[in-house]
């Protein structure tokens, strides 16, 4: 957590203010019983109404001061903790945005989301409650003890026995309960899993008449979860009554021994009442501290997870003095490129050399795991290569800025990812282009027909993850997005696979015109998609197994032939 404290620095004045205010509040809280005692000792016993009114109004003033201090402290702590969370969130988010795919994969998307949201919220809450309670509890217990001792040191010995007892009690119950809470979470996850599976597989389950079996699985998981939950709560049931009992018995002890002290003249009646109040303050503070301590491990875990993100240095950085890129032609060249994924035993791509020029369509084909998509990721510099070089217009992509490189590339990925927002926003995706250009891109991508059928056309909202449109429609929008800024290099990574053959053919015909002067790289598994490419690169297990046109490869290349034969019947190949 240490490093994260660094982010609290800008708020040190506010924190100091909050702590001071908390202190004021503690002092007033501790002063009030003294005043009560005076009212009893000197006012009520003597029937001195004027004195009572005088002390009473002082009490009200003190109480008001305490109340105001408390509200002001709360104001400060709410603001500081929220601001701390804001700063931290922004730091984490912008850090993650700079991550290369390698760092991103290392953490995983889900984990990064949790680290940016839940973990930070967790810290915010701990800071808030810390400023509110953590500062108050020790002050209160120390102050309470001082006041108690100053009232009657001998009677204060009662706390020496009670406080360790109370602490032990909470620790013992906490030790038993916390692992059970974790166990409960695991069982809940399992219950969720079982149900989610039976929801996604509903057709198969019904087709195979296995509803009863699935129901029993669920009931088993439910039973398991319920049993653990009941156990957790039953263990925790002891906590509150036991704590109350200790506190109440302490009060009885104070009254008994206090009575004796009064009898022997060491103490006054009002002081006894004040003493009980101090006792309550001390014990409640101790309970608060124990609960805070129980929260701490979780907060520390969150802090650790956040620090991990912030401490990760992005691997891929722009050069200090980048080569300026103005007019790019888009000539792509791979020279003996070898690349392995971090931690992998064998390279994903080995000794790859080829070039793809403007006005040319280069197709890449190969089975799953042959390294096709990796190749496109390297060209976009999502990863840095181990050896060799990737050049665009003769310049190594590592000597230009990532932004310059990517600005010239139009990329349509295998999985069409869309974002919530209008269709227009999704096609533009941050680019500054006219409506006419958006419509043009949609036309080429064969998307206008379905867009016209949506309620608001280009202004229609896409739901998060594009859930409200079909896979093929998503794919077409993703293609339009790659076209709208008229890049010099196009990469279509298996993005035609979700389209039916007819749309696929139409789209490629329209694309031909649009991309005439650009470098086009198409990655595909379907032979019909790529058979007319100017050059086809056949990849197998990360190596180039052949480069040539459809006819050339069909005549000479065994790997290519095998792929083609698995997809077409013989008469169609000719």
């Amino acid at each position, binding site marked *: 957590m240490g490093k994260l404290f660094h982010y609290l620095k800008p708020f040190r004045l506010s924190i100091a203010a909050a702590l001071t205010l908390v202190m004021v509040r503690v002092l007033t809280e501790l002063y009030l019983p003294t005043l009560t005692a005076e009212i009893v000792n000197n006012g009520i016993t003597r029937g001195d109404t004027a004195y009572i009114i005088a002390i009473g109004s002082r009490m009200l003033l003190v109480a008001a001061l305490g109340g105001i201090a408390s509200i002001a402290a709360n104001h400060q702590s709410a603001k500081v903790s929220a601001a701390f969370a804001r700063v931290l969130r922004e730091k984490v988010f912008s850090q993650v945005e700079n991550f290369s795919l390698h760092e991103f994969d290392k953490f995983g998307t889900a984990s990064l989301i949790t680290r940016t949201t839940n973990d930070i919220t967790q810290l915010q809450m701990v800071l808030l409650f810390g400023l509110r309670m953590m500062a108050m509890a020790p002050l209160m217990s120390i102050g309470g003890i001082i006041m108690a001792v100053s009232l009657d040191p001998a009677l204060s010995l009662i706390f020496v026995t009670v406080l360790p007892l109370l602490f032990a009690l909470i620790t013992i119950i906490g030790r038993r309960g916390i692992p059970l809470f974790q166990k409960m979470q695991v069982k809940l996850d399992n219950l969720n899993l079982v149900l*989610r599976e039976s929801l996604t597989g509903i057709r198969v389950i019904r087709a*195979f008449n296995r509803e009863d079996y699935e129901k029993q699985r669920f009931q088993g998981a439910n039973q398991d979860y319920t049993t653990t939950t009941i156990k957790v709560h039953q263990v925790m049931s002891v906590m509150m009554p036991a704590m109350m009992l200790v506190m109440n018995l302490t009060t009885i002890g104070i009254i008994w021994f206090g009575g004796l002290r009064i009898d022997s003249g060491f103490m006054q009646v009002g002081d006894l009442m004040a003493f009980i109040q101090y006792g309550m303050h001390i014990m409640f503070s101790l309970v608060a501290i124990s609960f805070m301590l129980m929260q701490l491990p979780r907060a520390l875990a969150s802090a650790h997870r956040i620090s991990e993100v912030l401490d990760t240095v992005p691997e891929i950085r722009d050069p200090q003095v980048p080569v300026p890129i103005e007019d790019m032609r888009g000539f792509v060249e791979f020279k003996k490129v070898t690349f392995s994924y971090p931690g992998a035993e064998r390279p994903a791509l080995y000794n790859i050399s080829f070039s793809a020029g403007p006005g040319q369509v280069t197709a890449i084909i190969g089975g799953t795991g042959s390294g096709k998509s990796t190749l496109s990721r390297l060209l976009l510099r999502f990863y840095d290569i181990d050896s060799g070089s990737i050049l665009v217009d003769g310049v190594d992509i590592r000597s230009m800025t990532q932004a310059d490189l990517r600005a010239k590339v139009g990329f349509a990925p295998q999985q069409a990812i869309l974002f919530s927002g209008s269709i227009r926003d999704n096609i533009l995706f941050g680019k500054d282009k006219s409506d006419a250009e958006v419509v043009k891109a949609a036309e080429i991508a064969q998307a206008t027909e379905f867009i016209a059928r949506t309620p608001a056309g280009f202004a229609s909202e896409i739901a998060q993850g594009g859930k409200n449109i079909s896979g093929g429609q998503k794919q077409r929008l993703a293609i339009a997005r790659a076209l709208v800024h008229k890049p010099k290099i196009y990469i279509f990574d298996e993005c035609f696979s979700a389209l039916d053959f007819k749309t696929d053919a139409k789209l490629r015909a329209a694309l031909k015109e649009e991309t005439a002067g650009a470098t086009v790289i198409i990655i595909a598994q379907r032979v019909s998609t790529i058979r007319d490419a100017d050059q086809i690169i056949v990849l197998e297990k990360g190596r180039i197994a052949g480069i040539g046109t459809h006819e050339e490869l069909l005549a000479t290349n065994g790997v290519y032939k095998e792929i083609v034969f698995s997809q077409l019947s013989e008469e169609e190949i000719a």
Partner: protein
Amino acid sequence: MSNSYKQQKAPGLRPRRGVPPMALPVEKPHDFKRSLFRLLQYLKPHLLSLSFVIFAAISGTVFTILSPRLIGRVTTIIFTGMLDRLNQVSGAGIDFSRIGKILLLLVGLYLASSLFRYLEFFIMASVSQRMVYDLRNKVRTKLTRLPLKYYDSHPHGDILSRVTNDMDLIGSTLQQSMTQIIEAIVTLTGILIMMATINRWLTLITLVTLPLSFYVTAQVTRHSQKQFAAQQEELGALNGHVEEMYGGHLIVKAFNYEKESLARFQTINQRLYEAGWKAQFMSGIIMPLLGFINNIGYVLIAIVGSIFVTQGTIALGDVQAFFQYSRQFTHPIVQTANIANILQSTIAAAERVFKLLDEEEEIADAEKALNHFAPRGDVRFEHVYFGYSSDNMLIKDLNIDIQAGQTVAIVGPTGAGKTTLVNLLLRFYDVNRGRITIDGVDIRNIKRSVLRNIFGMVLQDTWLFTGTIKDNIAFGRANATTKEIIRAAEAAQVDHFIRTLSQGYDTVINQDASNLSQGQKQLITIARAILADSPILILDEATSNVDTRTEILIQRATAQLMKGRTSFVIAHRLSTIRTADLILVMNNGEVVEQGTHTQLLAQDGFYADIYKSQFSTTQAG
């Protein structure tokens, strides 16, 4: 980009027990009374335990209420003893034997009170969780009776959230809030009674502060609810943005979108900050405010009480008891305000669960429906009309006649509604008009479970569950022997692969089945269908993401599977289509053409169009 994330409930965002809560905004139920009543019905089986819980809650609280009075009495004894001594009354002093007796009684009261509290919590934990357990099972049973239409029209996350989040809320409310309500009511009335029996005037003074406390609580709660709702909304927006941007990291980077993404994040983050600190601030001021009001009451009691003490109309200890009672007042008031909100959310959650329980069920099997049926596999569609909604008929007057052992290929562009026919055959949906027969028997006259045994299915969406490979294959026939399972795997060309795994057939398929490739999953589902050995098959040919060699294995396995069975194939492969006995061409949900390959080509319609664009060599590419 704007956000429609509000309604979504990410399970991970639910405040867990034991975590300082980011308090959720209150949702309003539709019909509070009726739903509450209905929810309470589920407590009926636990009536006995419940009455004990209520008894324990009341007793525990009553004992707590009695104690300040007793402590007050002790104070009075000490006070009068000291006073007498001051006044030099002979033999005066504190009567410790009386104090001792009272304190012993107090010890007894506290012990009993804690014991009752403990029993109350202990029993309530079990009662509430048992009730939720039953309710959860009830919902699960209901899910088995819902038609597929329900699943198709409700997001899975929504159903999941009802079974877990909503149920958990109901459970914890029952467990905590129910007894808290009882305690709050008993405490408030008990304290009032105690105070009234001590001194009416002091009681009246205390009561002056009561409406003020209620008013402040209500006002602050109302405002803080608003702020919490705002905070929750911004938090949802922020989470949504983060999820999208991280989920689409590749795209964000490829399109240089980082700056826009960060700018948007900052805007939401700033709004979250504003809403967040206000919500936390509001939630934190209620106690200081009430504390202050309480102190006003305190001083008033001190002033008036001291006058009474000097007049001798009240004992000092009773004033002290008053002090304590007035202190105990605040807690139940705040609690009641909280519970009112929690209860609203809980009833809203219960209503969501009830809504699911009230959904219309699948039409029951006909009374005379066949219990046994072993058909050869002739399938006929006779004048079938069907639409997912009655005003939009997708299938109009469809007539098909298929002999046992024949193959029907269903072709058409993506989204053409090819699964509709599958839905009708398995009676996931019923036809609107006409009938579908198997060996001449209307499928509505066959029990659903029997009907579905007739069909074997291999879907593109290869559904496997977490469990061993063996169990996954045996899914189609629960009582299959290991030998039969292996034979099925062999026929499906997957035996060799399974044996290369470290645990062989006992290898556990993990969540999302990520330890298997797409092609391997496909083969296992084929093995499953082979083992089920059904006379009629429904097959969905895999299209992409399978490498060439696996593709060949799958083709071989499929051929093996189709041998001698009537097969409906959602086809993508030309060889399957050309050899099919009947091709159904679908577009926009409708069957637009039917016939054999040669017939359809001769028709030169939609099919011929697709065929040419797909396979002709002269096309532009």
